[in-house]
Every structure is written in C-alpha cells, then in structure tokens.
C-alpha cells in the first residue's frame, strides 16, 4: 500500500469518499454499537470458532431427544444403564439389556444394533447419552446462574450507586464480606448445607453459586453507573428538564448495564466448570443424572487403571473443555472489541 492511493483523484473529492459508505439493513436494524460488536465477533477467526462451538452445543441441546432418545420419558435427564456391572465398557460395545430406541441417524452407519458410542462408566451408565443430555444441563446451569447473579448484582450495584452515602457504605461492606471467601469452597459449603434441606439435584449447587457469585457484577455496575452519571448526555438531559426517573431508566441504566450484560453471558463457560467441579466432588445431582462433572467423577474409582478406562475422562472432559472454550473465545474477542483503549479508528 502506497501513500499515493489515498490521495483524491481529480474525479472524486473527499466528500464523495465519505458519502460512499452505505449503511446496510443489518446495521440499521441493530444500531451502530451492536453492529460493531457483531462485526468484530464475526471477523475474528478465534471468535468465529467460538461461535461455531456454542452453536453446536445449543443445537445438540435442542435436538437431544432426537440424537439420544430417552428410555424413561418422565425423567429424560436420568441416563439409561445397561445392567449393573461395576467395570466400565469400552466405546462400541453392544447394548445388552433393554436398549433404548435407536435414533434415526444411526441408519447412516449401516449397523444394526444400538451400541455404547462412547462406552459406559462403572455401573453401566451410557456415556453418549449422558454427554448429549449433559449439554442441556450445562446450558440450563449457565443461564440460570448468570440470570440470577446479574439480577442480584444489578440490584445491589444500582442501589449503591443511586443512593450513595450510608446505603452505599453498607451494601459495599456486605459485598466485601461475601467476597472474603474463596468461591469454590464457599459454594461447596453452602451446597453441602442445602442438600439435606432441599434434597439432591441441581438446585443446591445453583443456589450456592448464585449466593457467592453476584459480587463482581454489583461492583462493576456501581462503578459504571457512577461514571455514566457524569457523562455529557446525562447532563444534557438534565438541562432540558428531563425527570430524574426517566434519566435513570432511559439513559443511565441502559448505558451502564449493557457492557456488563454482554460480558456476563460469556461467564457461562466458567459457571459450567464450577458446577461440574461441585458434581465431581460428589455434591449436587443424584447418581445417574446427565451431568458432565458427575460422569468424570466416575473416573475417581479407576485412577490406577485409567489407561484402560480413558474414555470416562476423555469424552465428558472434552465436552466440558470445548463448551467452555467456545464461550471463552467469544468472551476474549468481546473484551477486545469493548475495551475503548484498544479501539483503533473505526
């Protein structure tokens, strides 16, 4: 690229080059800021991989009943078992007792009977079924935890920022108290306490993760609101006599919360890891529930012979790692797009 090409030719003026940029339908529909974010995500190769991974997992979750038909229609999340033998079976073993309905796509492989595609864990739970339905569990856990932590964080953070003074002081000290504990240990403790109270299932770890997960958002929202409040457009609105409540809901909150919302959605990956970690330690869902962490925890009984039973770790571990990788790749790209210091000429 030489410098000369940038100079205006006699036929065109600078004015023409400025008016040349067309605003497409998508950009008009989304608005300039959203369009910039979307364009940034779709032009960065790493985040395209991330988007592809996330889309893949969402599709698997939606079509789980077609990919791996459940045997027990009332409790589709319970993984079917093939007998009760203690030793895991390798991938490709035939289903022996009560095989579930063979899914439609199995015809492509040209084989007759239904097999354990990824093998079984000790206790004969089918790994393939668990991984497919575990995708649903993962998305459910991630979305629920983020939704509730955000609601609490936004509530506390905005109350703190609006009222200031002693309200701010008290709320921020409470935030600090909750932050004084290491996240995993605190979540582990509260789930252990809640399990006898509300029974085994995904709720004890979910409640525990929300209880010890909202503080970061409260702090970020508070800081963002405090800085947005000082912006010129808020001042302008105040000057032309807009009411306080309208300023808060129309100008301050949307502008302060929007970046946090996007970044929070990218924490779904790490939420799913934490949930899997709790399951792995034996806290949370009942045995046989389709949940990646629990499947990996079956490997704990076979550590000296993991070389033989590698598939109990590798397949659910791969699902967990790829799921998180997808969210992290997009999250990383978003952080770059939304960091104003890294923005170069648009």
């Amino acid at each position, binding site marked *: 690229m030489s410098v000369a090409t940038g100079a205006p030719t006699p036929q065109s003026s600078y004015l023409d080059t400025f008016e040349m940029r067309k605003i497409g339908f998508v950009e008009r529909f989304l608005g300039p800021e959203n369009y910039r974010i979307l364009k940034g995500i779709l032009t960065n190769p790493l985040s395209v991989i991330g988007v592809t991974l996330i889309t893949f997992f969402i599709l698997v979750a939606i079509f789980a009943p077609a990919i791996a038909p459940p045997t027990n229609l009332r409790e589709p999340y319970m993984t079917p078992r093939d007998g009760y033998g203690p030793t895991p079976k390798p991938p490709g073993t035939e289903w022996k007792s009560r095989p579930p309905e063979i899914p439609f796509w199995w015809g492509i492989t040209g084989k007759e009977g239904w097999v354990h595609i990824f093998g079984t864990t000790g206790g004969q739970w089918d790994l393939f079924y668990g991984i497919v339905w575990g995708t649903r569990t993962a998305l459910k856990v991630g979305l629920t935890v983020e939704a509730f932590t955000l609601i609490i964080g936004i509530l506390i953070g905005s109350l703190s920022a609006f009222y200031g003074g002693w309200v701010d002081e008290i709320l921020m000290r409470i935030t600090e108290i909750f932050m*004084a504990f*290491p996240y995993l*240990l605190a979540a582990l*403790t*509260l789930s252990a306490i809640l399990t006898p109270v509300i029974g085994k299932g995904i709720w004890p770890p979910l409640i525990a993760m929300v209880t010890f997960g909202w503080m970061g958002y409260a702090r970020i929202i508070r800081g963002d609101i405090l800085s947005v409040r000082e912006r010129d457009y808020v001042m302008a609105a105040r000057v032309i006599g807009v009411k306080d409540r309208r300023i808060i809901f129309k100008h301050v909150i949307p502008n302060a919360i929007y970046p946090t919302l996007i970044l929070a959605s990218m924490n779904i990956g790490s939420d799913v890891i934490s949930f899997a970690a709790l399951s792995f*330690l034996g806290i949370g869902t009942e045995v046989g529930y389709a949940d990646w962490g629990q499947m990996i925890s079956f490997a704990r009984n076979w550590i000296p012979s993991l070389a033989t039973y590698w598939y109990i770790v590798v397949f659910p571990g791969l699902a967990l790692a790829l799921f*998180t990788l997808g969210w*992290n790749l997009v999250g990383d790209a978003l952080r770059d797009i939304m960091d104003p210091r890294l923005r170069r000429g648009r």
Partner: protein
Amino acid sequence: MAVRASRTAMQPLIDRIWSSKMTNYIIRRILILPIILFGVTALIFGMLQFLSPAERSALYVRDVPKNEAMMDAVIRRYGLDQPILVQYWNWLMGRIDPVTGNVVGGILRGELGYSRSGSQSVAALLKRRFPATVELALYTIIPIIGIGVTLGIAAAVNHNRWIDQLARVFAILGHSLPSFVLGLLALLFFYAKLQWFPPGRLSDWANNVVLAQTWNTYTSLITVDSLLNGRVDVFLDALRHLILPVMVLSTISWATYLRVTRSSMLETLRQEYVVTARAKGLKERDVINGHARPNALIPVATLSGFTIAGLLGGAVLTETIFDYPGIGQAAGAAAAQLDVIAVLSFTLLSGLILIVANLIVDVMYAFLDPRVRLN
C-alpha cells in the same frame, strides 16, 4: 517540658504522616476490618442455622446423640435452644458447661467442633493437614509467577506478533480446561501409563520412614525435614509426588498471570517515561528491564498475594484428584459426606487468610506504587 519540646519538633512529620492519603486509606482499612470480621463470622453462623440442633451438637460433642432423650440433654447442656444472639456469642467465645464447669467450644478459643467425617476435632484435623498444603503452595507459587510473568512480558514486548498470539491462545486454552480434567489426564499419562508420578504425598516405604521413631520433625514439610534428617531418598520421593499437582495447579494459573502481566506491560510501555528512556538512547533491553518491567509488575504483586492466600486455603480439586493429604482434600471429603461443621471451619479459615492477605496486599500496593501514595 522535654516532652513538649520533642513533640513540637516531631509535629511537622506527624502532620505529614497523618495528612497523607495512604495513611488515611490504611487506617480506614484497619477500622473497617472488625466490621468485615463480624460480617464473615455472622455469615458462617447464619449458614450453621440451616442445620438441626442435633447436627449442630457436633460443635461440642464428638458423637451424634443416640436417642431423643440424649439429644434433648445435649441441646440443653450446650444451649442449642437459646436465643440466636446468645448462641452466636457462645459459638464465638465458648460456654461454661453446666455439668463440668469447664469452658467448652468457642471458635475464638480455637475450638471449632468435631468433624464427623474425619472422626476427630476440626482443630486437630486442620493442624495435621496444614503442613502438606503449605508445602504444596510453596512449590507451586514459583512456577506460577516465574513462567506466567515471563510469558506475559514476552507477549507484551512482541505485541501482535506470533509470540503474543501463541501466548493468547495458550491463555484461553488454560482458562478453558478444568483443573480436575487436566489432573485426571495427567494421572492417565504419567501414572496409569508411564508409572512415573504416583498420587499421594509419599510412597509406603517413605511413609514408614517418616512415621518411625528415629525421624525428627522440624517443620512438618517433608522436603525440608528429609534433608535435615539426611534422607535424600525420602526427599526425592516427596518431590516425585509433588510434581503432578504443582504442574496442574500452575497450568491453570498461568493464564491469569499471563493476561495481567501482558496488559499491565502494554500499558506501561505506552507511558511517557518509557518514551523518554528510549529517546535518550537507552538500549531496548535496558528500557524493558530497567524502566518498564518494575512498574508493570505492581499488579502482579497484588495478584500473587491472592494466589498465595488461595493456595494456603487448600486447592480442593487438585488435592482431591491427587489424593494429596492437605486441607483442600479434607474439605472436599467433608463436603461430600455433608460434614458441615468441618467444611464451614475450612471456609472460615480460608476466608480469614484471604482477608489478611487482602490487607497486606493493599498496604504493599500503596508502598510499591507512588501514584497511590501521592494521589
């Protein structure tokens, strides 16, 4: 009069110390400390209230009361039916046992109750498990900081070149791979397949040596004690057991250090004093090592405070996978058996460690970064 004279002589200095923002900040932090400590204990006590009085009796007695009559006796004896504020006070300070007249319980007296999964008192359990965790933390912090910081600086200096991209991909991968999956994969290759690094803290023969009468315990850190006892073979055995957990713990932390060091270094390299250093003709190496790096490492100092505190609180997942007998493994095992009294004590302890670390880091930060001091 001498006192007054010296007071006036000192006055300007005292004024300066008192008026500085840093001192105010530190004093504020220390004044808030009791409030935070109260909040932390109140939160833990609040969580205890989810338990039935029978379960809470583990605060005072080792065994679960067998029948209702015994349970009632225990509840009355230790005041588990009293108003909640009285119970909170008893839980903090201990309570006079009406039968024996001795003071029982009281977390401030170091009596944390009984761990039913460990079938001993929580304090004894903590005391026995803590050295292993300390040893693991000491060996882990070196590769975490060393490699993470080196990679981060290399990435920043070579901004947007292949080293940077590689480091970035590596950081995302490290951030996405759960520690327990990484740990199990490490065991799969290095233990199940190659038989190089077994789980646990010591092999059976070495454990027998350590438990024998002739063994002198100096620090309870086996790698140190073995050298002091002149047993190089035990030292090597302990190292062999430490390698995998250290590897896993540091791999999952590199990502964070890399990211923090990289962005801090990028920020520093844009500062005017770096431009000045370059303009006056210093070599690029001297600019980076002498001018940019020390300032870029200030956030890393903060981060390492938290890392050390976190490691001392026990790495629950890594210790569990490698069957390493530290606090983390005890916490994981206790939680799995719903031994709430024990897990709560572990959480309280790690919370306290974090609070202290937080305070130290804040004070250190003010000393390290003149911008905080002079603001």
